[in-house]
Every structure is written in structure tokens, then in C-alpha cells.
């Protein structure tokens, strides 16, 4: 037990060193650190969130939050509590987002999101003129979300980081975009 805890503290000490190097701009140390903490984060988040797909999104959110808050780590102080606070906050955010989503959009299920992410567009297929027109008619935020995921082929987390919003918010925007596109394209088909 004490060997385990000393192993964990030794590991966190090493992580603290890598983080200090990352603060100075050492990309290799940073990449190594992120790779090392992901399994621990997955355990931490997974113990609090049951859905595996949501847990992976939260882990990605933790990485993004850590990236934004990396200047707040004080070298020499324990790295574990710093990381766990960021992870806990991301889990709280996920719970809060889930609550808000349940209030506003009861029909928005994760299964729909996953299906929608795969269905309507293929990056290798050219955008038809109708699709381009329909995309142009979407509100800016929804158009940006759809384009980032399906035209630029970014991951949801990357797209969220690029758009400057949370993963959940980006998913909601994209979902609304898909629904609007389906209406726009479906409506035209019936007109035809």
C-alpha cells in the first residue's frame, strides 16, 4: 500500500517536472505528459461518469482545460491535486451540460449525435451546389460546427477548441445544423 502510494507520488513528481518543462515550451515533455496522464484521467472520469463515449469527451475537455490553465501550475507544488481539480471541474461541467441539455432538448440523445456525425457528409465526396447553398443558409455558429467536423474533418474536441466553445456546445450546434440541413434539403426534394 505504501509502495503504491510512494509510486503514485513519484509518478506525480515526474509529471510536475514534465509540466514545468512544458511551461517553458518543451513540446516533447508536454506530449509525454499528456500521454501519461490520459489513462489516469480515464479512470478518474470513468469512475464518475458511466457513459464511455461521454467520458472520453470529458477526458478531452480536461486536456483542453489543462492546456488553457497550464500557466497556473506552480512548479514544486504537487501536480496531482492541480490535475484532479481540473478533471473534477470538467466532470461538473459535463453533469451541468447534461442537465441543461435534458431541460432544453429532451430528444437530443447521444445515439443520435453519433449517427448524425457519421451520416450526412463524407469529406471525400464533393459538396454539391445544393448542399453549399443549404450550408450558407445556416446560422454562422451552426455552419461553423458542421464545416469544422465534416469538411475539415476535425475531431469534436479539436473543433470545439477551434470554435472556442465546449465540446457539448459544439455538439449541440452541429446537431442543430444537421437538423436544419435535413429540413432545407428535404424540403427542396419535395419541391422538386
Amino acid at each position, binding site marked *: 500500500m505504501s509502495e503504491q502510494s510512494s509510486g503514485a507520488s513519484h509518478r506525480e513528481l515526474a509529471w510536475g517536472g514534465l509540466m514545468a518543462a*512544458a*511551461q*517553458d*515550451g*518543451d*513540446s*516533447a515533455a*508536454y*506530449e509525454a505528459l*499528456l*500521454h501519461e496522464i*490520459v489513462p489516469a484521467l480515464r479512470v478518474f472520469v470513468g469512475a464518475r461518469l458511466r457513459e464511455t463515449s461521454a467520458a*472520453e469527451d470529458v*477526458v*478531452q475537455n480536461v*486536456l*483542453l482545460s489543462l*492546456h*488553457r*490553465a*497550464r*500557466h*497556473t*501550475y*506552480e*512548479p514544486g*507544488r*504537487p501536480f*496531482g*491535486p*492541480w*490535475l*484532479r*481539480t*481540473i478533471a473534477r*471541474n470538467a466532470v461538473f461541467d459535463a453533469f451541468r451540460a447534461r442537465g441543461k441539455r435534458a431541460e432544453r432538448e429532451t430528444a437530443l440523445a447521444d445515439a443520435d449525435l453519433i449517427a448524425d456525425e457519421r451520416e450526412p457528409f463524407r469529406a471525400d465526396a464533393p459538396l454539391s451546389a445544393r448542399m453549399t447553398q443549404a450550408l450558407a443558409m445556416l446560422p454562422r455558429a451552426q455552419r461553423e460546427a458542421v464545416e469544422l467536423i465534416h469538411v475539415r474533418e476535425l*475531431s*469534436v*474536441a*479539436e473543433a470545439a*477548441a477551434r470554435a472556442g466553445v*465546449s465540446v457539448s456546445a459544439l455538439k449541440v450546434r452541429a446537431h442543430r445544423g444537421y437538423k436544419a440541413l435535413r429540413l432545407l434539403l428535404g424540403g427542396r426534394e419535395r419541391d422538386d
Partner: protein
Amino acid sequence: MTERTEALIAELARDLQPVRRLPGLGGVAARVAILALGLVAAQLAFAWLSNSPWRKPAFASVDAWTIAAHALLAAGALAFALGACVPGRERLTRSGALLVAVALGAVVWIGFERLAAWPGLNALAPGWLGTTFACSLGAIVPAALPALFFARFASRAAPRRVALALLFGAVAPLGLLTAPGVLGCAYPDELHHVLGHLLTPLLGALILCSIALPVLLISRPSLRA
């Protein structure tokens, strides 16, 4: 590891730039406290040089209790505000919250004691409202400087609850800067003591925070999330 997480890590590592670290919390606390205590000393020196009437409060008098409660409030608020700014400092935040709770309990107790002895509105001397404002502003205006210093630190730290951090960050210097007012005020009314001195750290922090928060949120849009 999923491909997306892998890709995200690669992108974050590619995106990495050297960052300017936040100063240590001990250093920030010391600077806020030194700034506030320096202003207290300046006010007392000014009062002494201008021969203003100021009293040495008797041990265990209401004034002494007020100054002690405010000092406790200042210490707790500073610990809470600093802990709230940086991840992983929950112990500091909790200790600060505990001190603040004790200090607020003392403030409420002193307030009740004072108001119980208050003879009522009829006993108010003309111009009491102006005097009360003047006493409050005497603490709030100089406290703006250390509060601004803390707000600058908070804007860099980007805490999750920025309003709460700013509020407690303003309570801290106000808790110290009410002391010269308590010592120098000869106005005898109990309501004046409660509104113009006892509650000044809380009311003043609300005022300073309501000014600083919009400015901070406009200048740093990332804090809005």
C-alpha cells in the same frame, strides 16, 4: 487511446507556447497585505499630522472587536480568493471560507449588539447619512488600489468563479482599511457604526466588484466561459 484523443494531444503539443507562470500565492498575498497595510499606515499618519481626533479603542470595546473581526475577515477572504484562483488549492479555499464564516458571525453579532442599543430614527442627527457615506468611502476609495492589484492577478489566473474571487479579493483590503475609520470616527450613533464601518467591507466589496467585474469580462472575454 482513441484516435481523437491522440490527435488532440498531438495538436496541443504542436500548439504549445512558453507561458509566463503565475506568481506564487504567498507573494501575491504579501503584496496585497503590504499595499493595504501601507495605506492604513498612511491614513493614520495623515490623521496624526492633521491633528484629527482619533481614539485608542479600549480593550474588548466594540471598536476593538470590529477591528479584530475585520482583520479576520480580511485574512479569510484573501485566503479564499487566492485559493479560488488556482486549481488544486482547495485546502486554502476551505480554510479561508472557515475564517470568513467565523468573521461574519462576529460581524453579525456586533451588528445585533449595536442595533439593540440604537435609540431609533428620532435620535439621528442631521447629516448622518452624509457622514456615513464619508466614513464608508474613506475605506472603499483607498481599498480600490489593492483590489485592483488582486483583480489583475485574477484576470491572469482566470478562476472558474471569477465574480466570487473578485468579491473576496476586494473584501480583503477593505477589512484592513476600515480600521482608520473606526479609530478616527467620533460619530456616536449605532446605526452609523453598523452601516458606515461594520458592513463597509461587504458593501464596499460589492461596489468594487460591480465596477471591476464588467471591465474584466469585457477586456478578457475568455473569462465569460
